[in-house]
């Protein structure tokens, strides 16, 4: 068994001039980063961490946008034996106070020794630090040596054991930032072996990605896998892509991209927001797989995407699916790239009332389900009932998994780690699904997490933000997701109890709630529904019953629209 550092060195020694990453920035020429650039750039950061007294095994938080510095600072930590973790950069809409609070939440649990950011953002980062916390150094990208010849035989990363933690991965919001998924070298490399095999990944492949690196799909499929497997990566900025989704198609066409990963909403987004004139000369025939992952997969979204781009060479067989999670490093299942994902129609009523996915009979209301594929070779998948016993085929239950690439634990959170596993060591995903043969269909979520555009959002974070708005009853707030067919993802609905019956006053409170959530979370809130108390349903222990409240909301909406 080896480590990421060994692999980086071997890759460099094999062919230092190979272009490893093409970094794209809108309005700038593409930057071709060779293996040599990568190793030298990373070594400069490793040297800076060393000079700042940051020891192997300590955590380094990276607060950087898309670009070379993010790549080098990440691999610099790997070479130096430290543990890198990427924190999303401040966005235009996010309030600086919230950002500071999120950063403090992250620091409090993760206890990093160093933070890397831009010179112009250093003051912002320092303002989130408290006396006596773990951070000993704030390094800025301007302080790196311009030329540095590393002694490759003495890199501290070479001394790490395969079972040492190599990186942390967080989801967003206060709750997510306090639950870092800690992954070992061994876990990452086992995942890359099994997942590459499922893809038939080879040196002719070119991966094109706009996904953010703080998310598992971007970090693993769209960054570590190509770099560590000597596959060329074309890396776009998520910031650029969302403003100009056609850049993905142009990049695939220009670099003959073969593989990309997209969350479901991106299929709708690309299909709806790209104009013909932006596709002049674009050829998508090199794409052998566009893999739908990280939110529930929809056949309708694949159809939209295919219809929009088939005249540009997109092949129907290129549309694929995957089920993944950071706790398994990334991939759990993958559809077979040589055929289309399995699609079936199931009886709606049996699914909703009996939790059974029975093939639909003629004339009965049906739901279209698309498989996420089969477990990759190192991962076993089961579907369990409440008592953690296997359910029969086609019966919906909680998806559980076991593999040789599981997380080491939630970093500094033994409580959360223990809760995530059954007594015999199966990881409980919190997702519902059913099996047909080996095909896994993911059908919903047991946990309350909302997935918006591939981002995991904890409703309790949104509820606590809304509770602070004047006029809202603190604690009498509930947030949940409702699927939006047009967007291909969930809309977030927030219901809040207020005393006032006055129309304009309610409008004002609704505006304030929307504003507060938008500026204090990773999402924009659209639907705010104000109600008079008592409306919100709580459990006997006083917790908010989100799914019961969601049902109540849907009923009221249906009545209103009737």
């Amino acid at each position: 068994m080896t480590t990421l550092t060994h692999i980086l060195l071997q890759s460099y020694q094999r062919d230092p001039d190979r272009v490893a990453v093409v970094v794209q920035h809108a309005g700038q020429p593409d930057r071709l980063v060779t293996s040599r650039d990568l190793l030298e750039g990373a070594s400069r950061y490793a040297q800076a961490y060393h000079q700042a007294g940051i020891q192997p095994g300590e955590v380094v938080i990276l607060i950087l946008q898309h670009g070379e510095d993010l790549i080098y600072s990440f691999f610099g930590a790997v070479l130096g034996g430290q543990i890198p973790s990427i924190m999303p950069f401040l966005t235009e809409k996010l309030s600086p106070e919230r950002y500071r609070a999120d950063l403090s939440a992250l620091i409090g649990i993760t206890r990093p020794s160093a933070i890397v950011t831009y010179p112009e953002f250093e003051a912002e980062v320092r303002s989130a630090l408290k006396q006596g916390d773990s951070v000993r150094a704030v390094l800025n990208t301007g302080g790196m040596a311009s030329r540095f010849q590393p002694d490759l035989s003495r890199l501290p990363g070479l001394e790490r054991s395969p079972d040492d933690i190599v990186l942390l991965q967080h989801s967003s919001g206060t709750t997510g930032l306090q639950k870092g998924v800690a992954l070992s070298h061994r876990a990452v490399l086992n995942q890359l072996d099994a997942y590459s095999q499922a893809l038939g990944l080879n040196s002719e492949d070119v991966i094109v990605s706009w996904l953010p690196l703080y998310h598992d799909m971007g970090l693993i499929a769209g960054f570590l896998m190509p770099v560590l497997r000597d596959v060329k990566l074309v890396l776009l900025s998520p910031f650029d892509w969302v403003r100009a989704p056609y850049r993905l198609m142009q990049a695939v066409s220009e670099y003959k991209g073969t593989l990309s990963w997209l969350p479901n909403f991106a299929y709708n987004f690309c299909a709806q927001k790209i104009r013909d004139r932006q596709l002049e000369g674009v050829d998508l025939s090199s794409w052998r797989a566009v893999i739908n992952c990280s939110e529930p997969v929809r056949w309708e979204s694949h159809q939209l995407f295919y219809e929009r781009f088939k005249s540009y060479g997109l092949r129907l067989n290129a549309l694929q699916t995957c089920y993944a999670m950071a706790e398994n490093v990334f991939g759990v299942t993958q559809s077979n790239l040589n055929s289309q994902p399995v699609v079936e129609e199931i009886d709606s009523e049996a699914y909703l009332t009996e939790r059974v996915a029975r093939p639909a009979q003629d004339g009965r209301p049906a739901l279209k389900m698309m498989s996420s594929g089969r477990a990759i070779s190192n991962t076993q998948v089961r579907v369990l009932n409440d008592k953690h016993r296997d359910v029969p085929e086609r019966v919906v239950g909680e998806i559980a998994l076991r593999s040789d690439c599981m997380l080491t634990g939630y970093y500094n959170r033994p409580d959360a780690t223990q809760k995530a596993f059954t007594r015999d060591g199966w990881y409980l995903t919190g997702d519902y699904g059913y099996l047909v043969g080996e095909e896994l269909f993911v059908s919903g979520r047991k946990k309350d997490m909302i997935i918006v555009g591939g981002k995991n959002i904890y409703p309790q974070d949104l509820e606590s933000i809304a509770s602070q708005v004047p006029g809202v009853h603190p604690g009498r707030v509930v947030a949940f997701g409702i699927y939006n067919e047009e967007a291909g993802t969930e809309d977030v609905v927030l219901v809040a109890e207020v005393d006032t019956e006055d129309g304009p006053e309610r409008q004002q409170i609704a505006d304030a709630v929307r504003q507060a959530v938008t500026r204090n979370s990773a999402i924009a809130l659209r639907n705010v529904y104000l109600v008079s108390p008592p409306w919100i349903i709580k459990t006997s222990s006083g917790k908010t019953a989100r799914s019961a409240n969601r049902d109540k909301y849907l009923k009221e909406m249906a009545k209103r629209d009737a």
Partner: protein
Amino acid sequence: MDDAMFNTLSEYITAKILKQPGRSLNLQEPLISGGLIDSFSLVDLALFVEDTFGVHIDDTELNADTFDNLEQLISLIEARR
């Protein structure tokens, strides 16, 4: 200041982006930094401006530095017409 342009843009944003047709917007209300228009809707706004007024806003310009409220957006459109 072109009132017709203000009304057209304001109606589009409240009805299509905010999905609150009854809402009013004022000229100085911060759209991007205030979080009213999220990043997923910026491309819609740019396409709407292009289709309606024949003015191209490059995707590299879709940020609060180029325009953050209706007043600034209207000046930008007028300057390019």
